[in-house]
């Protein structure tokens, strides 16, 4: 389905391609801004631990809360660094549109983690998380890096090298 949607967009208007580019860049900027309030210094990574603790204090999915309580929080210096690395790279790769479909899938996974941690925190808006999913689904379905992104430039090179994973990831 993603392939046929991408093909449709490729043969569409300049406006459609521009909008797909904008969706990808803005989704990337979501992650860029999302790391601005965090710190790379353990053990709390600038408040990241507090939001992770919310998965236990306001459980959305009990097995996930158990995992956070017994695995993630005890090993937070490692898991916090991993979360920061993933979010920094999500912003970097989505903004320039490199391996975009792969990073859209990573973004869906990270959105799921954030949703399961923060959805039931008082004052949170359900649609914030739903729209995060929607944005990444759109980037994935349209292979948005092929429009104004690095994927558009590199795919011919990857095709020449028969780099199947990179072609699939883009």
């Amino acid at each position, binding site marked *: 389905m993603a392939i046929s949607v991408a093909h449709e967009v490729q043969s569409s208007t300049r406006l459609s391609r521009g909008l797909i580019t904008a969706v990808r860049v803005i989704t990337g900027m979501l992650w860029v801004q999302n*790391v601005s309030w965090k*710190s*790379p210094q353990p053990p709390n990574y600038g408040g990241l631990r507090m939001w992770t603790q919310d998965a236990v204090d306001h459980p959305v999915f009990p097995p996930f809360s158990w995992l956070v309580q017994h695995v993630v929080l005890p090993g937070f210096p490692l898991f916090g660094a991993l979360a920061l690395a993933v979010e*920094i790279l999500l912003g970097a790769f989505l903004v*320039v549109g490199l391996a975009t479909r792969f990073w859209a899938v990573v973004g869906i996974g990270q959105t799921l983690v954030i949703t399961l941690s923060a959805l039931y925190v008082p004052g949170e808006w359900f649609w914030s998380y739903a729209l995060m999913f929607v944005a990444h689904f759109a980037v994935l379905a349209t292979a948005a890096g092929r429009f104004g992104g*690095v994927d558009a430039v590199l795919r011919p090179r990857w095709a020449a090298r028969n780099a199947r994973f990179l072609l699939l990831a883009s």
Partner: protein
Amino acid sequence: MKLAVGIGVGLALATLLAIPQGLPWHMIGLGVPGYLVVLALAAAAITGGWHERRSLVLIAGFGLLAAAVFQLLELVIGGQNTLGGDLSTVSLLLGGAIGLVAIGSPRTAPQTVPQT
């Protein structure tokens, strides 16, 4: 190479997102030295892309990579923050670096893109 111009222009425009204070428009952190570094490297990317100078695009890309690593190291170590940035700066600089290095690297023979 046209995309290098786009990335350079995008980086230059992104510095505007450091000006407003408070959410939602303050998206990245940058001090005056940070502005100078980003704008200089964005200019290099634009010039390199415009004139099809692969070496200049690569210099801009590796320059951004060095700036991203430098910013991250200063944040990890703590204390001085020369570029005046935060982790959003690292992410943005890294994105520009990855993009410019990827499109500036030597290419193999071009072929038609298959639909996968």
